[in-house]
């Protein structure tokens, strides 16, 4: 049985599954129920000067019938008195000493940072997370993503926090930047013990097309909010991997963004995360999802021979390459398993209209024919096919030695003739 114990920047938890700083981690009662359900850690909903929230606050993006596949919110940090939060943190740690309670913080001045950090640690925090990511409401007040988008300020505030803290400090980064690297490095230079990413993405989730008001609607108005949920995972994976492969970075990462199940968690870990944080899927399905996350991860680790989380971290990072270093002579073509094909021909229309016109209907059968001389191996047919393993992309032994664009640009590496480019 694999050991799921996680050490993320010095914060130890029985498994890598943490609640993200968000509504599911808003109160002691909630976090304690989450720990009972199996969550290894929780990042407490951001503490700061308590705010007043609007009604309504959340917006859902339904994709192909999947409700909340994308999600956004215009809720701000905690609206509960600080002393109540600290008392509940204390009670939670007392009941669950082995679980990680990380307190998310967002204030303005150095004095405020010092004060709130000391109170958090007094309450029993195992770690701190500096909220430099919130993209709405707080950034207009000079906090949240306003800090995360400005490396100098990021570094300075991180340094304050590290100075006053006796527990590990994670910096939560905003994805609302062109390149995540300088922001991760700013946290590192400030002395952070790790980073969390991504916070939510600036977004308008939708528009009420009858009222002509964006959503979520607050009376006759709305505002941009933070986008999250399953749909943002690819963006989060990219930013995680960007930092993980940066040789100047080398800090633990707590991965966030679209983690819905153990598979997502494995992907984040393979691209460099040590722990993962979950909010939206818990909001949609409840704390109980962690049971499958723990089982699934454990079974995966057993089947792949991983004894500890550390053995997995970053396993796929070396295979994350620049485009110019990809082998242009590597060739695949689509193969359709006629015994599995149900004849929907969704692949045919996709290939004809959206790819390279190399899948064709045939007389006397609904199974399409692949014109391998035209197939560029793009994957589109395999992506749209509703039958698992019906279409596979098969490697062609074309006899060409590997050659990349970067090699080609310096006169090395001979490229095979292009396919489908006539």
């Amino acid at each position, binding site marked *: 049985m694999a050991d799921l114990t996680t050490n993320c920047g010095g914060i130890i938890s029985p498994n890598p599954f943490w609640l993200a700083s968000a509504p599911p981690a808003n109160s002691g009662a909630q976090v304690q129920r989450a720990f009972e359900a199996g969550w290894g850690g929780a990042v407490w909903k951001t503490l700061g000067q308590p705010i007043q929230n609007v009604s309504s606050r959340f917006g859902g993006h339904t994709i*192909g*019938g999947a409700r909340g596949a994308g999600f956004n919110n215009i809720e701000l940090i905690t609206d509960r008195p600080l002393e109540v939060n600290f008392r509940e943190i204390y009670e939670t740690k007392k009941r669950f000493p082995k679980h990680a309670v990380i307190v998310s913080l967002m204030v303005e001045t150095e004095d405020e940072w010092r004060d709130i950090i000391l109170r958090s640690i007094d309450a029993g925090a195992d770690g701190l997370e500096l909220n430099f990511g919130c993209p709405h409401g707080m950034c207009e007040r000079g906090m949240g993503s306003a800090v995360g988008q400005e490396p100098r300020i990021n570094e300075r505030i991180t340094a304050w926090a590290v100075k006053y803290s006796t527990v590990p400090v994670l910096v939560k980064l905003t994805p609302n930047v062109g390149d995540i690297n300088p922001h991760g490095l700013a946290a590192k230079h400030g002395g952070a013990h790790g980073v969390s990413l991504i916070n939510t993405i600036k977004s308008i989730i939708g528009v009420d097309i009858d009222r002509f008001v964006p959503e979520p609607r607050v009376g006759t108005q709305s505002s941009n909010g933070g986008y999250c949920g399953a749909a943002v995972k690819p963006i989060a994976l990219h930013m995680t991997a960007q930092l993980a492969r940066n040789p100047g970075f080398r800090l633990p990462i707590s991965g966030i963004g679209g983690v819905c199940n153990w598979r997502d968690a494995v992907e984040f870990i393979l691209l460099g995360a040590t722990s993962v944080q979950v909010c939206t899927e818990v909001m949609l399905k409840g704390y109980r999802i962690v049971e499958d996350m723990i089982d699934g991860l454990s079974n995966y680790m057993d089947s792949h021979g991983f004894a500890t989380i550390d053995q997995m971290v970053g396993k796929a990072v070396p295979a994350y390459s620049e485009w110019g270093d990809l082998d242009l002579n590597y060739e695949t073509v689509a193969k359709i398993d006629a015994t599995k094909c*149900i*004849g*929907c*021909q*969704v692949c*045919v*229309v996709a290939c004809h209209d959206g790819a390279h016109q190399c899948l064709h*209907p045939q007389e006397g059968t*609904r199974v399409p024919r692949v014109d391998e001389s035209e197939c560029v191996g793009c994957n589109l047919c395999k992506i749209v096919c*509703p*039958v698992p393993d019906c279409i596979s992309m098969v490697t062609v032994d074309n006899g060409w030695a590997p050659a990349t664009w970067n090699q080609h640009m310096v006169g090395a590496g001979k490229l095979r003739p292009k396919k489908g480019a006539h």
Partner: protein
Amino acid sequence: MAHDKHAATSNALPADRGEAPFSDYKVAYSPTQAVAEATRCLYCSDAPCMNACPTRIDVAQFIRKIATGNDRGSAKTILDANILGMSCARVCPVETLCVGACVYNTLGHPPIQIGRLQRYVTDRALDEDWQFYTAGPDSGKKVALIGAGPASLACAHHLRRSGHACTIFEKRDVIGGLNTTGVAPYKMKADASLHEVDWLLEIGGIDIKTGVEVGRDVTFDQLERDYDAVFFGAGLGLDSRLGVPGEDLAGVDGAVAWIERMKLQPVDLSGVRHALVIGGGNTAMDCMRELLGLKVPNVTLVYRGTQAGMPGYAHEWKAAQVLGAKAQWQAVPVAFEGDGRVQRAKLALLDGNKQPTGETVLVDADLVLMAIGQGKLGGMLAGLSGINIAKGVVQADEHGFTGRPKWYVGGDARNGGKEVVNAAAEGKQAALAIHKSFG
């Protein structure tokens, strides 16, 4: 359904008619159910469901429109291909057509419930009186249509879109043909059919002369002389008879005639303990389910062949069996007995070649429905040279043209007795051909 603006036709039907107690076998979808089912559709390319539809409804497209909340566009996609989309949604044997062709069957998943989705959106179209079509500018051409059933109605509606004036001659007082008088009431009741007819006639310019029998009240020569084209959509004739002793006893009835009475008038089955349905086609299946639905205690199918060889749909027989249907396979009545009213039937047992084994059995029977086919009406046109009639069925090319200038045919009169959707398709084809013939 909301019938307020169609009160005249709907209210003409007695509320206590025989079909009244039936409720829908396949219940209507709620909007939530419809969207959920529509979202499941794979949106196949060159979709097998569309190719299985005689009217070639673009099923994938109309279902996608339901999924996106474009019900109006969805209804129009259906009705563009088949103006009788509402009734076809209810009466089509979808299990053997579109739903049977759904690729999900191959995947081992439940197929998309295309009929129920089509019903969902066409019910909306009719209930909310969405009208998508207007009559074309007057072409000066006139078309006579014989019979006010699905074939003629589909034909006339298409002709009106091109501006041709249409007159339908119907010998009955009630319009809609078998959609009104013959559909099993757990699929569609007569008032729904009349509602559809009223909705369809809103295009205007379709004059229906009821109670007028062509060949008796007006001659074929007159039609040919007075109209620029004639469409023969008279359907089928009377129920066939076996020609055995006692067949004229009270209680021995033709299936189609009995169904028509049950749908339009009150029926009294209180004295019926044992009903026999003679035949193995889908009319027989309907009779079985109808009699059982009307609480006749013992209903037995008598068919010459085996269950496997029966032309009726397997899904229909399965549904009848659930209600308690019994069967006497490989048997045929050779006499009916009774004192003024049928009480018993004498059945000859048949072998695998449907030949008598010499054995007979006597069974109780106080109602017998003969569902062994209907007469063909092609003979009505026998006097018109250039029209070929084979076994009573009017012969035509794929556009419904008979070979005699001006004369077209569609529906059961052309195909010998198929589904409403075939009649709708043939009516549409003929309309296009007639329009083309006008140049």
